[in-house]
């Protein structure tokens, strides 16, 4: 195995497991308190408890989970019950590997792509892993011989399969615009700017000068080129992950609990890990496909390198460029994680029939519409994909 794959893997795993997950666990406690308990109390609590000690909490949580007793319920299918958390956590951790955290750079005349794996069919790999994740829930729910878990897993399996369709169809428009399935290539395609009224220019309309400069020049990010797909794709991802407001499978007011309700100890920790990594994965995917990934708004990689190379030499310029891109990626990632948490704590849960209606009666027709409109638009401006 090439050495750079090893260090990239270690870097991404370290970032996700060592930095983002503890931060997420902590933020989720704090943000839920802030959003549910009202402004003043929460703010006061924020001030008082904002200590380093609170950030060490995840370690205590981990220790508590590891020493807890874990037993196999009567009548359960032993092997499947014990391995279910692996089915759940492994696919999510693999999917993290295709998200590019910085761009492609020439180091000693060799192009270095800052992503662990960049398969030809990157987005298909993500969809594939999402499809495979269904097994984790279904097996966890079935194997523990608990009717509540079984019902929950049936609900979430139905939901996941349905939203898989929406997820695939809503990403087609984006694929048409970028003309690639590779996630790194998608970000490279977004690493530029476009004039908002460029289609009028294509049609031969001469525009006043102010329409061609700053506020009307946007970064060529998916969110501006495919706004509808952005909304649909994000909703589908959230529903796929089964966090509220799409947690009809959990629904503590109607039912016992989630599919893994019989799982305790370290194995419940793996379920928890899968859920949290999923939050990071969703944020990473939306960032990569719709928010320009690592790219900086209005300033392309070439601009940065051309501007910095005379000042500090080629190698330091590349280094600064990598740092800037990684910071940009991290900021967008954290923003998307924040948006997910805000959605989680503000939106009421959808009933199960509403979840299904949303997918089949709204998201599916709208994604199809988006595909046709995108196709017509591409024909109109004469873009060859």
């Amino acid at each position, binding site marked *: 195995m090439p050495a750079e794959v090893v260090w990239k893997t270690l870097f991404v795993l370290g970032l996700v497991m060592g930095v983002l997950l503890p931060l997420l666990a902590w933020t989720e406690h704090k943000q839920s308190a802030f959003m549910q308990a009202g402004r003043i109390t929460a703010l006061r609590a924020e001030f008082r408890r904002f200590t380093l000690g609170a950030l060490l909490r995840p370690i205590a949580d981990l220790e508590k989970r590891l020493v807890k007793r874990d037993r196999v319920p009567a009548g359960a299918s032993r092997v*499947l019950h014990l391995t279910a958390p692996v089915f759940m956590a492994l696919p999510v951790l693999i999917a993290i590997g295709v998200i590019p955290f910085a761009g492609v750079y020439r180091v000693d005349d060799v192009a270095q792509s800052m992503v662990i794996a960049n398969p030809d069919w990157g987005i298909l790999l993500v969809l594939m892993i*999402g*499809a*495979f994740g269904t097994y984790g829930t279904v097996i966890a729910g079935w194997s523990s011989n608990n009717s509540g878990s079984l019902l929950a897993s049936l609900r979430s399996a139905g939901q996941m399969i349905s939203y898989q369709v929406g997820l695939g169809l809503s990403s087609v428009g984006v694929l048409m615009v970028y003309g690639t399935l590779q996630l790194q290539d998608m970000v490279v395609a977004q690493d530029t700017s476009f004039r908002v009224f460029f289609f009028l220019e294509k049609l031969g309309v001469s525009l006043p000068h102010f329409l061609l400069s700053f506020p009307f020049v946007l970064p060529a990010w998916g969110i501006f080129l495919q706004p509808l797909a952005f909304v649909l794709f994000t909703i589908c991802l959230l529903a796929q992950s089964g966090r509220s407001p799409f947690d009809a499978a959990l629904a503590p007011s109607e039912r016992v609990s989630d599919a893994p309700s019989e799982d305790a100890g370290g194995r419940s920790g793996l379920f928890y890990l899968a859920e949290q990594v999923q939050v990071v994965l969703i944020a990473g995917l939306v960032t990569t496909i719709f928010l320009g990934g690592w790219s900086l708004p209005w300033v392309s990689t070439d601009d940065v390198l051309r501007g910095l190379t005379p000042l500090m030499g080629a190698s330091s310029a590349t280094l600064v460029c990598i740092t800037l891109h990684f910071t940009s990626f991290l900021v967008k990632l954290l923003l998307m994680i924040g948006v997910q948490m805000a959605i989680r704590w503000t939106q009421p849960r959808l009933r199960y029939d509403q979840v299904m209606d949303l997918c089949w009666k709204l998201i599916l027709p709208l994604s199809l519409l988006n595909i046709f409109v995108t196709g017509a638009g591409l024909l109109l401006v004469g873009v060859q994909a």
Partner: protein
Amino acid sequence: MTLPELLFYAFGAIAVVAASIMVGALRSTVGAIVGLVSCMLSLAGIYVLLGAHLIAAIQILVYAGAVVVLFLFVVMFYDLRRDALPTGRQRALRVGGALLGVFLLDRGLRLLGPLGQAPPLPEGFGGYRELGLALFTDYVLVVEVVALLLTTAIVGGLILTKKRPE
């Protein structure tokens, strides 16, 4: 033995074992389905070794991700337990299965050996671009006919399950 050959035999062995022993002989229906999924995954692995990456992805996406999940759904709904299945004819099945297994093992061991050189793949083989171009130029009629067929099947399914007004 080179790495691709080793992987080929590993995936092949998993596929055969999962398909024959787990799907055929396990009494637990969910266990059998897990075997079926392992078989699908190994097939996808063999596709990757052959350079057909897109087919491998679709194999997992469609078969493992959708079709088998629906099987699992049905099995869980009916909650088939061990005692719901017949117990007779077990001995005959076992003896027959063992004989067939020995025969297949013999045949398989004769085939075992270096796989020979695969022919060089054309540029972009197995990628979505080449497959898409082939589907929508040379085979466009077939694609359209299959699309029509699938639409008919969906409409037929809807009509069959629709509640008739009294």
